[in-house]
């Protein structure tokens, strides 16, 4: 099931994956469903892949779903960046990750020299795929603080201002965090703000637990 959460920045698309994610055609169908959901979306979209109910994922499916989505996010900027409606950027976050999901996903990403941000089932942030320790360290610092900048970063991360920004920009280029007006934002923060916006937009439920509207939410 895929759910879209509207918002100015960025749009969050949630995809709950299920059960047995095995074989390439299955992976392809799942990915196409996810892509279709956000195909017409302008601006930035954070796709959240929820692995909570995934019993098994094999290497082929990990490649078709996660590595392909990461590839689309990073390696096809020309088509997305020159869209007449404005730059269209894609980000991916995995949630509910269990130990047995990690090897197929990590291996699929490494083969393509890609990386993806993830949260373990207990909420701990981890990077999967081709990342070196210094990248992972810097990324964890951003996750801990949730957002960093736009104030000067000199010394903040144990690095000179210029180098810190170069390395943070590289994490942004790899679509592992968001960047806005000199500020670098973790995906968890994005989700927190998106949930807050949704709460404010949605009227309180009535006595029977119903809401008047469910504007902007779609599911498949």
């Amino acid at each position, binding site marked *: 099931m895929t759910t879209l959460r509207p918002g100015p920045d960025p749009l969050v698309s949630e995809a709950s994956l299920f059960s047995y994610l095995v074989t390439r055609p299955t992976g392809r169908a799942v990915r196409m469903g996810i892509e279709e959901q956000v195909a017409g979306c302008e601006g930035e979209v954070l796709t959240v892949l929820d692995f909570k109910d995934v019993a098994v994922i094999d290497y*082929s499916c990990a*490649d078709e779903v996660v590595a392909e989505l990461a590839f689309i996010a990073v390696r096809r900027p020309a088509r997305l960046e020159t869209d007449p409606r404005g730059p269209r950027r894609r980000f991916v976050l995995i949630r509910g990750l269990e130990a047995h999901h990690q090897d197929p996903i990590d291996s699929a990403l490494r083969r*393509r020299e890609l990386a993806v941000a993830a949260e373990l089932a207990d909420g701990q942030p981890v990077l999967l795929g081709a990342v070196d320790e210094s990248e992972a360290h810097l990324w964890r610092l951003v996750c801990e603080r949730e957002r960093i900048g736009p104030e000067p970063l000199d010394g903040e991360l144990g690095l000179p201002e210029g180098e810190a920004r170069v390395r943070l920009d590289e994490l942004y280029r790899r679509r592992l965090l968001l960047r806005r007006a000199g500020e670098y934002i973790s995906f968890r923060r994005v989700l927190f703000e998106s949930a807050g916006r949704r709460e404010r937009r949605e009227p309180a439920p009535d006595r029977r637990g119903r809401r008047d509207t469910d504007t902007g939410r779609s599911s498949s």
Partner: protein
Amino acid sequence: MSRVIQLPDTLDENTFEELISDLENARQGERLLFDARHVRWVSPYGLIGLLAAGQVGSDRTGLAPALEVPDSSDVRSYLDRMDFWQNASTIYDLGAHSTRPHGRSDALLEITPIRSHQDVHHVVERVREQAALILESRLHYPKPAVIQFSVMLSEVCQNILEHAEAVGWVCAQTYHWKRRLGRDVLVLAVMDVGLGFQGSLAAEHARRYGDRWSAATALEAAFLKGESRFRDPGRGQGLQAIRKQVTKWNGEVRIRSGDAMIARVPDWDDLSPLRADLPYFPGAQVLIVLPARAEEPVGT
């Protein structure tokens, strides 16, 4: 004209070469008779090997081969329980032989044809519960092993669909290897009679290897280097993952294709890791052996 192919009394991975060596000379229009009367023991590899050999015989002669059923009632009963006759009926001319009603076997997986990705889903979902029981209680593997086994099963079956362009079969059974190992083992066999590794990888890799291109180099490229018939860097992970996982469990994996065989050889076997002198046989034949852990895990 007819040719009798005498089956060895033990039909397994070690006698497979004997089974297929007579097939090399089969001619178009020749009627083959696979004489299984003296077969006394069959392994999963032997079971689907007999299907594969029959299919190749049929392809070469243009006639459905005949199969003389084993004299041993134990073997016949095992073949019944493993759904052998049901699968053989599409390959062999079985004459008056009919499958008798039988109960469920104690095998992890009876002979199952792999024709589509739905079949792979079916196999993976079907074995999960029993595989968990076998891996934990008989092989003493840790709990997550069932997931890793499911992944391995999925990848090895997909290999048929991705590379063979032909039907394949999968079969799995547990044994106690008293003499060879003194431990329980899970034996998984997967076969097809399609393109084979050399044919599948040729378009993408043969030129680079030049004169050295062969079934053996194709197996090395796929099994050791993770090369695939596709340019996509995401392809070719499956066999690598299987090799890694089997190594972790100190198991054996051997892949035979064309006239070659490559293997990950554990310390408990003395198989040659690479052979290139075997009788030609199309497709790919995979055997995976997972042994019980040598010592009981602490705390259980």
